[in-house]
């Protein structure tokens, strides 16, 4: 039997769907299993054949996990939210101001400095690791949250690049008209350029919040007092006992994913627009 062109197309579409669904299942399966484990009776976690759907559903695992350490996970979540929030605000404010300067103002040395911005994206973070530790310790910032969010207030190169590329595409006629009307550059920035740059601003905010929320290395080297710990450190502490309480650990791990997941779901259209922009124009 010979297949017509139409049948062939349908066959290949069906094949694509099958592959995509298998792939999506593989991606989601571990996450679903994590939630399923979080809700299982601790005694049934290591049973074979495994229990796919938790029965009975043990919400108490969440309570146990939450209170397992002193202070509780409430404190870890608050600390992390504070750091991520401050980092997000700082990243957006500083990078958008700097990006405006590169995209819309003419000043001597601008193009050279922008080359430095591009080059600095390639600079290695591992080389500055030890000096940063030494400097922050000297400033008295060891065991405080400052080293985790203050650097975000100095306009990260990647963020500046992303915003600048976007602001370049906003028509200059808008500024010129505003300038003739006697608007200052500040009001052009605040009233025209910023409102038009929602997508890259969302991208910068999400990236900085996501990075600080998920960060493990910086909290690991800078924080020692448990009352200052972030969620990442709390999770690590849960797994470091000899008998790991897997249901409690998985309950707190799933909980820790919720904030970033919510932000992603709500802002994803803007966010994907933003990354796509960097990836292509980069």
């Amino acid at each position, binding site marked *: 039997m010979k297949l017509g062109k139409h049948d062939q197309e349908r066959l290949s579409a069906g094949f*694509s769907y099958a592959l995509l669904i298998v792939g999506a299942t593989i991606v989601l399966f571990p996450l679903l299993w994590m939630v399923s484990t979080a809700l299982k009776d601790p005694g049934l976690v290591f049973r074979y054949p495994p229990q796919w759907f938790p029965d009975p559903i043990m919400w108490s695992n969440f309570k146990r996990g939450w209170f397992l350490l002193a202070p509780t996970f409430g404190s870890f979540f608050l600390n992390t939210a504070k750091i991520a929030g401050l980092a997000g605000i700082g990243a957006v404010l*500083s990078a958008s101001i700097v990006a405006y300067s590169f995209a819309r103002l*003419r000043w001597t040395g601008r193009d050279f400095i922008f080359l430095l911005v591009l080059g600095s994206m390639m600079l290695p973070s591992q*080389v500055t690791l030890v000096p940063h530790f030494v400097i922050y310790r000297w400033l008295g910032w060891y065991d405080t949250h400052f080293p985790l969010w203050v650097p975000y*207030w100095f306009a*990260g190169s990647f963020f500046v690049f992303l915003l600048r590329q976007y602001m370049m595409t906003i028509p200059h006629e808008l500024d010129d008209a505003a300038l003739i009307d006697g608007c200052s550059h500040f009001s052009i920035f605040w009233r025209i350029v910023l409102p038009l740059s929602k997508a890259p601003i969302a991208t910068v905010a999400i990236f900085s919040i996501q990075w600080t929320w998920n960060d493990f290395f910086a909290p690991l080297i800078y924080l020692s007092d448990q009352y200052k710990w972030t969620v990442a450190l709390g999770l690590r502490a849960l797994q470091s006992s000899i008998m790991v309480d897997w249901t409690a650990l998985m309950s707190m*791990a799933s909980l820790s994913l919720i904030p970033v997941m919510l932000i992603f779901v709500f802002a994803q259209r803007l966010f994907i627009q933003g990354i796509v922009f960097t*990836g292509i124009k980069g």
Partner: protein
Amino acid sequence: MAHVLTLRSVAHKSSIRRQENLLGWLMASPWIIGFSIIMVGPMVFSFGLSFMDWNLLRAPVYAGFANYRKMFFEDELVFQSLKVTLYYALGSLPLGLIGSLAVAMLLNAKIKGLALFRSIYYLPAVLSGVATAQLWRFVFSPEFGLLNTVLQLFGIEGPNWLMSTTWVIPSLILMSLWHVGGSMVIYLAALQGVPTDLYEAGTIDGTGWWSRIRYITLPMISPVILFQVIMGIIGNLQAFVTVAIMTNGGPANASLFYMLHLYRQGFEYFRMGYACALAWLLFFIIMGLTLLVLRSSSAWVYYESELRGR
């Protein structure tokens, strides 16, 4: 009168220019200050420290090339960690490239539910960190883990994954494939930018799907592939969280990533000078590999504008 007016407007204009100049520097200053005190200063400091012996308690002592000598000739773990890290990168980089490209191509075929699939595949990229590393540690658990349970359904007895010196790196590579969504969205956008008339021309000429990929798609998106390969080199060679949480470098240092070795030297043994020297070695390796890829790119990266002579 007209003459005076022009003069005045020139003076006015140049004062506006001066103002704009000042404002430009002022608004760019957060980056300039940050670059100087967060990047350049610490890099110089780090270079200096790499010639010192310093444990943070006593004053630093000049040590000449001792740290570098130790790194190249005495510390066997340097070679081991480099080997392990390169093994991991050599596995996860090409497989990740193929995986993310394949998913992007499947999604590019005018499919219903694109947004949903894209979100699902992208999700792990948002969730990287301690929680997902712990999840995967559980997935790889030899007796009760998800992976071996599923394999058992097919009658296959899975290995010890993270506890086996042979399987630990392949396990980590496998896990890294779970994160392909991050570069997938970027490839997808690039694919959507390939003009469809190219494919139509290809279809009329009767080319098969493989030739279409090989001669149309890949060349058209090769600049994006180049960018992703470079970012992949940087990211993979600096990987840390997964091993810190999942294996702690074990078993028998079989998963001792370079950054884990550096972390221990610097922040567990407080050998600040030595950790800086280690960081510089990694820096030069990353730079070297990046330059190599960039040099090779003229052979395989195709810029549309070149052909059109723009």
